[in-house]
């Protein structure tokens, strides 16, 4: 188990390194840089920008250095906890993002929790009542959740909540708490506002999870040990909980890996629609204005979230299922 842990941890390093190179390459892809768009903006407002001024700004932001140098400055800075400088906000990136990262994390975490809580009973019900009306209905609902674009669901829910509950539900907390330090009241307010994005982002993941749990559980239910248990007179509920369900549980853990990128993706677009103070809207703005360190650090953070999530899910799986641990060591 320990060697598995170490091996898995060592793989993380090159993975993250390659990801950082890719991200830096991607944010450098657009033609020009922040300064070109900034200067264009200034000029459109009728201000004159002198050549000297441009050269000075370029040097100050080290935009005149070659790609490799810029990359290494960014990378080594990140290792020290310095995420670079946001051109748009004129303050270090870490100060811009601070709270947002935490809220993004909170949102992703709650969404996964929601997915589990919903998918678990429905999956079990669907498998034990295969081809019943309940099974068909729930499966159809799941498919519908899969097929509806997240952002539209967010809009509709926003509207419904507004009409039915009469509250403004945009954002992630009541307006009074914005920029306030964390308090019990703020926490409750966040909880109150969290459910819409969680439901919206959760729907697509839930559908997939239900289908996988159902399929796995169905496979197990037809095995002989279940028949044996039933023949020996085990109560049906206990039989279900104790044996086949435990076998079918793997996808719940393994799926954090595939669920996380999905949740983070969903969170990005839904938070733009709902104007949540998470990473999504800021990432979009940063990408559009070529605020490269801000955009790059966001992308890096989102990837880090998924990579670490996958790592944790691998560990949990290895702890639960010895077959997976062994498999990792057997290489041809």
């Amino acid at each position, binding site marked *: 188990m320990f060697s598995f842990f170490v091996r898995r941890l060592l793989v993380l390093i*090159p*993975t993250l390194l*390659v*990801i950082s190179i*890719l*991200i830096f390459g*991607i*944010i450098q*892809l*657009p*033609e020009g840089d922040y300064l070109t768009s900034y200067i264009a903006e200034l000029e459109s407002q009728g201000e004159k920008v002198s050549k000297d001024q441009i050269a000075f700004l370029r040097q100050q932001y080290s935009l005149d250095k070659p790609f490799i140098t810029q990359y290494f400055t960014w990378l080594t800075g990140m290792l020290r906890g310095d995420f670079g400088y946001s051109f748009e906000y004129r303050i270090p990136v870490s100060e811009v993002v601070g709270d947002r990262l935490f809220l993004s994390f909170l949102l992703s975490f709650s969404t996964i929790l929601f997915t589990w809580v919903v998918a678990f009973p429905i999956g079990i019900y669907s498998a034990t009542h295969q081809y019943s009306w309940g099974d068909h209905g729930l499966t159809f609902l799941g*498919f*519908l959740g*899969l*097929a*509806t*674009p*997240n*952002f*539209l669901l967010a*809009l*509709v829910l*926003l*509207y419904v909540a*507004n009409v039915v509950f009469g509250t403004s539900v945009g954002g992630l907390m009541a307006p009074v708490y914005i920029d306030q330090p964390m308090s019990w009241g703020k926490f409750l307010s966040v909880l109150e506002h969290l459910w819409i994005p969680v439901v919206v982002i959760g729907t697509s993941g839930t559908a997939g999870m239900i289908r996988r749990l159902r399929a796995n559980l169905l496979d197990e239910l037809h095995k002989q040990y279940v028949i044996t248990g039933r023949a020996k007179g085990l109560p049906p509920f206990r039989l279900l909980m104790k044996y086949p369900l435990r076998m079918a549980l793997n996808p719940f853990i393994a799926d954090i890996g*595939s669920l*996380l*990128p*999905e949740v*983070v*993706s*969903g969170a*990005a*677009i839904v938070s*733009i*629609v709902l104007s949540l103070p998470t990473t999504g809207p800021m*990432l*979009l703005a940063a*990408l*559009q204005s070529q605020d490269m360190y801000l*955009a790059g650090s*966001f*992308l890096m953070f*989102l*990837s880090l979230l*998924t*990579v670490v999530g*996958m790592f944790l899910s691998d560990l949990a799986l290895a702890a639960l299922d010895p077959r997976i641990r062994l498999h990792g060591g057997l290489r*041809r």
Partner: protein
Amino acid sequence: MSDHTHGRGGAATEHFVSTAPFDPYTIDELTAEQERYHMASQWRMMWWRLKRHRLAVVSGAILLVFYLSIVVSEMLAPYHLHTRHTDFIYAPPQELHLFHEGRFIGPFVYGFNYRINIENLQREYTEDTNSVHRLRFFCHGDEYKFWGLMQASFHLVCSAPTGTLFLLGTDRLGRDVLSRIIYGARISLTVGLVGVTISFLLGLTLGGLAGYYGGWVDNVVQRVIEIIRSFPALPLWMALSAALPVTWSPVAVFLGITVILGLIDWTGLARAVRSKLLALREEDFCTAAVLLGARPSRVIGRHLMPNFMSHLIASATLSIPAMILGETALSFLGLGLRPPITSWGVLLTEAQNINAVALYPWLMLPVIPVIVLVLAFNFLGDGLRDAADPYKAG
């Protein structure tokens, strides 16, 4: 045929040859039905199995209708994509009627009574039950260039000469939403196909290399797959499409977006190909082909590929919906396709704010074809996957 095995019973003590004429087919007579079944090709059997999957067949039919419609979009749409009706801005959907004052007069719509509510400055449309506008069929209406080539004005259905026909309402410029949905299908339906073709080629090549050669090639491809999969797709799409130059023409942007969608999607296919190849290359028929001197490309293409092609097609079908939703999301954010290219995602940008939901809910209608399309692809893909499994009973 297994008939040859029948002559060999136990060992006879004395060599005996029957002189009677021997017809192998008398022993194991196959009925015409069995014959058909045993001689059927893989694809034919897959088709038979698919036919039994009712939901998949229905979905396939729906997709067929969708894809046929994009051939003649211009004729199906009552109006041209860009026709503006400045007198009818944000007009609600017109209901289709058959009976006027108890009398059957064929399909028609009522005209609009229009006034501006001074209090909240909203346009208010009401049905004017006095003006009856009968629809015309196979008629001449807005001019268009069929496939951008031929000047024509033929439409399947048009409004009455003096009336309007907005079955799904109009948008902020007074453009007919139904016509725009029909035109938008052209782009939305092809995005998935082009994207999936790209990801298919990539997945097949890279997965094939990894699975067949194993070793370091396999390792490299595996790592690349892992890295791409650990990216959250949408932020990556956002970053890449933000990198498309603003100066590109809309068509180039369209191609760029499909390439981006394909570039990130191939990993699932590559994994499937790799694992299948890893298992299959150990089989005897593969060894035989190698020993006979077949080159790798022939072994992969001729001997291994047919074994999992059906699976691949099924999984490709299942990955189209994600691309369609991806394009819709990107266009919705303004990072994807840009007008004048019109996809369903571009149409949905009109419904971006809560006002649209509250006041003009019909602007959200383009989402219905999106949902139907995604569901149809999912069901068809499921059906194909089941049908492609040769070891399934039946």
